């Protein structure tokens, strides 16, 4: 765009020495950004090498996290409980947040008149501005007692006797547990999924909606049979973005998830860790090289997993944009 302006006027050839300097300057800034990203991966990889070399894949599959070598318990770092906690809370968050976010996006985009839709979506998206630690303190002092005293007993009552679901709600309601962690996360990723879904729904070409409408479809049918199928990939992308955020979230989760048990069981009422909360809780203890390396490796795992979902999300949304662009051409 502006490049062509500049080249049309011959400025691309950087006649002025000031141009050369300035161009080099901003190029250098940009290179630093690239180096930063590369540096991230490289540093984390290098610093986790000791741990990787020593524990290999056992890091991901072992449940024993024992920083101190004693005669009985060997030194081992197995992050499985943390991975388990991350998976459980993130998936739970996704399951709760996606219907809420998608439903709200549908309401705001297709059903609500614009005087209502705009403020509603604005307010929901304000949730993004709330700092993580604020969710944490609210979660700790408000949500946890509520879960422990009301929601979890209720769930236990309702589902306790059903074969498989019953196992999910077994045991004493802790309050500070995986379930609450999932609930807090869901609130945090709700606005992310919502705003991306809204954009995606808005991108569905008018011709598709009108084509369905002209066949005598109700508004809901236009939504469910023309808009959502068309936008399917993008919406999945939105959910993936939410998932990526949930995986990386630290403070709010760490304040409500208990950080005490490394038991991997079926019940959502057990306290646990996520990879992020494990890092936050343990980094000060990392006095040995191998311990340090293990923590860094946790960071590396987090980086890789979150990035995979981010990239997948970006890809799916881009596919939708491409298809929309082609049909609008």
């Amino acid at each position: 765009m502006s490049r062509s302006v500049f080249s049309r006027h011959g400025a691309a050839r950087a006649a002025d020495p000031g141009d050369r300097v300035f161009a080099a300057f901003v190029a250098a800034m940009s290179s630093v950004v690239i180096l930063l990203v590369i540096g991230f991966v490289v540093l984390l990889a290098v610093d986790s090498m000791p741990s990787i070399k020593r524990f290999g894949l056992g890091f991901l599959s072992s449940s024993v996290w024992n920083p101190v070598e004693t005669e009985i318990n060997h030194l081992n770092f197995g992050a499985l409980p943390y991975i388990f906690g991350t998976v459980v809370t993130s998936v739970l968050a996704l399951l709760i947040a996606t219907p809420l976010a998608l439903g709200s996006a549908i309401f705001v985009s297709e059903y609500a008149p614009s005087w209502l839709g705009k403020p509603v979506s604005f307010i929901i998206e304000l949730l993004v501005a709330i700092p993580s630690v604020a969710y944490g303190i609210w979660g700790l002092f408000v949500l946890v007692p509520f879960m422990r005293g009301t929601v979890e007993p209720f769930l236990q009552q309702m589902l306790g006797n059903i074969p498989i679901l019953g196992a999910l709600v077994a045991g004493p309601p802790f309050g500070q547990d995986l379930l609450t962690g999932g609930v807090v996360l869901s609130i945090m990723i709700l606005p992310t999924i919502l705003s991306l879904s809204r954009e995606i729904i808005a991108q569905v070409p008018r011709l598709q909606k009108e084509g369905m409408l002209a066949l005598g479809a109700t508004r809901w049918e236009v939504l469910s049979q023309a808009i959502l199928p068309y936008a399917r990939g993008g919406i999945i992308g939105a959910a993936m973005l939410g998932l990526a955020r949930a995986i990386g979230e630290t403070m709010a989760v760490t304040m409500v998830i208990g950080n005490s048990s490394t038991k991997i069981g079926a019940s959502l009422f057990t306290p646990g860790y996520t990879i992020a909360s494990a890092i936050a809780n343990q980094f000060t203890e990392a006095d040995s090289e191998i311990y340090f390396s293990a923590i860094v490796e946790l960071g590396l795992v987090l980086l890789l997993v979150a990035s995979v979902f981010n990239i997948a999300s970006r890809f799916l949304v881009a596919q939708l944009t491409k298809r929309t662009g082609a049909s609008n051409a």
Partner: protein
Amino acid sequence: MRKDPEGGKFLRRRAVGAASLAITAILAFASVAILFVIVGHVVVNGIGSLNADFFTQIPKPYGESGGGIAQAIMGTVMMLLLAALIAIPFGVGTAIYIVEFGRGRFAELVRFAVELLAELPSIVVGVFVWALVVRNLTGYSGIAGSLALAIIMIPIIARGVEEILKLVPDSLREAALALGTPKWKVVVFIVIPTVLPGILTGIMLSVARAAGETAPLLLTALGNSFFNFDLRKPMAAMPLQIYTYAVSPYDDWHAKAWASTLVLIGLVGILSGAVKFFTRRWKHESQ
């Protein structure tokens, strides 16, 4: 009319439509309600503890009541300033490169890098600075904290400035070039001043975001209960103070944690809300 072999289907379809409207409306309002519930709790629980001491004194020792979070406020301000000082040149410079000078592959790579940087979980940023700087160079310190915050701020500034620069019409650049102005002067003295408000809001947005970040500071600045102006030592920050107070066993500290949250949300919320509001207006005006 021809015979309609529909049976009662049309009524059922209408009912389904009405139900979906109701359900999505409920979901939307539930989402809105969540915000009000959370903010409501913060206000109700925090407002009681806001007093002059809160803003001017440092924390009292364990168990004693009174005192405040003055050192945390100072720490936040100092680290944000240093972080901004680092992040602004890199963020703005990268955006300028992408929009005004970028050529093909490399520019795409830079944009991709900015996107990746923006999506990094903040704890990973903390681990990175922890591993790079804290362990070997500076120890837990305000500098490390600022570095972490700067890394978080750079992509936000870069994206915001990139968008703003793209909104500037080419005709403006052409007019300046036609007068014989060299390209770099066009960018620095013509384009940038035009969008300075937009750039400032982009910076404000990044500051608002950084102000609320806890995880990266946990591993870098660590926190401090006393006034500390030496950036080479551990430094307090509001989010860190909130965390420390909240997970402690003392009611008084819990109350202070709520109050700090209220102040933090107030600042962050006002900044973000104002930025969003102004950005929408600009987007409309230039389109």
